[in-house]
């Protein structure tokens, strides 16, 4: 059973455009929501994370929007650049005392110059 649903599976955006990736979850025990970025041949790396006590978090061109009542969260990449081309994973975890993250299925982003 997929704990975190992610869409779209792939996304093609023009340079300078906005990339939007959406995720949804069911488990209300989840209370932290990181996004990871993975380049080919590399391991995932933390991009940005949010906890449910805030509805939005921004770091540079990357913004997470969080809707607790709808159990949805999304990543917006403003002014998308070719260097942003990568696979993006949303994830969710709870207070089990360990970082037991449930990952979404990933979105392959391609930014066209």
């Amino acid at each position, binding site marked *: 059973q997929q704990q975190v649903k992610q869409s779209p599976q792939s996304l093609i955006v023009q340079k300078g455009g906005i990339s939007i990736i959406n995720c949804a979850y069911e488990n209300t025990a989840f209370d*932290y*929501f*990181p996004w*990871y970025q*993975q380049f080919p*041949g*590399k*391991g*995932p*790396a*933390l991009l940005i*994370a949010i906890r449910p006590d805030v509805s939005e978090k921004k770091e540079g061109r990357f913004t997470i929007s969080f809707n607790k009542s709808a159990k949805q969260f999304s990543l917006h990449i403003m002014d998308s650049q070719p260097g942003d081309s990568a*696979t993006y*994973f949303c*994830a969710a*975890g709870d*207070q*089990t*005392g*360990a*970082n*037991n*993250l449930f*990952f979404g*299925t*990933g979105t*392959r982003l391609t930014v066209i110059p």
Partner: protein
Amino acid sequence: DTAVSQTPKYLVTQMGNDKSIKCEQNLGHDTMYWYKQDSKKFLKIMFSYNNKELIINETVPNRFSPKSPDKAHLNLHINSLELGDSAVYFCASSQEVASRPTGELFFGEGSRLTVL
């Protein structure tokens, strides 16, 4: 200076063989993990160790056995390899702050296992 390093990066082997993947982290983290990424890029946790103690053991065949000689190392041994074991295996580490997960995992570069 690599934070989480795993070896080998590539592993090609025949069905039925036994193989190991080694992982070391120099971040001083207390918790280490093994994740499996399949051909569709789906990432799933296999094991988690905290200070050498097993704390997460997802539904993984018992042909997979993790070993943590100290908190900086977590190795993965796989017996009787099957075709379906072909995947990229990622080691990761993390630190908790005040017993609260930070949500930040530091991943190695992965070990691509191909079973023929």
